[in-house]
């Protein structure tokens, strides 16, 4: 039941946002609101990334075996340096997998 509610809610919200200006709802967005929207992607995504990378079971996980941190840094570097999203994701995944596999063997 709650799954149906979740799907219906997400679908309704997203659809409403997509067509809101196509049915005579106002003259467009106020300038301050557009400015605010610029920061939404960075704000939301960083708020997801940082705990996902730095925490483990709610506690800081800042040692050499943290493969998520290694992978995320690799992705960030590749995307920043080479401006290629898919290469960055692929490279980060590779570092993540290798790190998870090798770091317990090499640095125990």
């Amino acid at each position, binding site marked *: 039941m709650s799954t149906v509610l979740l799907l219906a809610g997400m679908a309704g919200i997203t659809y409403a*946002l997509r067509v809101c200006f*196509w049915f005579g709802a106002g003259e467009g967005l106020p300038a301050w609101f557009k400015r605010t929207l610029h920061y939404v992607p*960075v704000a939301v995504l960083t*708020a*997801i990334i940082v705990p996902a990378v730095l925490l483990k079971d709610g506690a800081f996980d800042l040692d050499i075996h943290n493969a*998520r941190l290694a992978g995320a840094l690799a992705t960030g570097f590749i995307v920043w340096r080479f401006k290629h999203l898919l290469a960055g994701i692929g490279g980060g*995944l590779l570092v993540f997998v290798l790190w998870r596999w090798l770091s317990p063997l090499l640095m125990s």
Partner: protein
Amino acid sequence: MSDGALSGVRDAVPMVVGILPFGLIFGTLAGPAGLPPWATLAMSALVYAGSAQFIAVTLLAAGASVPVILATTLIVNLRHMLYSATMSPHVSGLPRAWRAFLGFFLTDEAFALIYNRFSSPRGSVDRPRYYLGVALTLFLAWTGSTAVGVLLGNIVPGIQHWGLEFAMVASFVGIVVPQLKNRAQIGAALTAGIVALLAHGLPYQLGLMVAALTAVAVGVVLERPAEEAA
């Protein structure tokens, strides 16, 4: 021959290459996060918003409640209002039913392609048909790759332990990094990260929302002095 649906399909193909891996990963990850296969497919077909879907699944896996996920969806998808407003003059001549139908397909990728084409000097285009060509191509890519991902998740044993969930984190990193080109965005990112860590213990996964809203506010505040200087 008028430039129509086929031309839309052709323009959309390069975007498809970028969409397929994300659909695959979404389809694979949604199951272990707690979404049954039918709901995973329904989410791709009915919500049809990649980043919101990934975030919803992340929140679901962390035990967030439906209202929290819906509120997050609203914030994450607010940018579609911007697309809606920008596209509105280009579709105002279409019949209501067409607008109601085509509006559903206004994703980031569709907006980028269609707005580009409609405002380009590259000759006239049959607007509803071009839009439809782009929209259906991208929609098929997303739902199709989700379905393949769901299948893979069920066929390949232990695929949820391969670390694919990290692909989601990596894709978010890849989206954020290119945007960090001024101090307002960097300030927003730092704020989001710090507040998210501090607020991590809040119930219902509300930490994400608190961090995001604080970070947006910091971004807006930091932007002002730069504007006056310019």
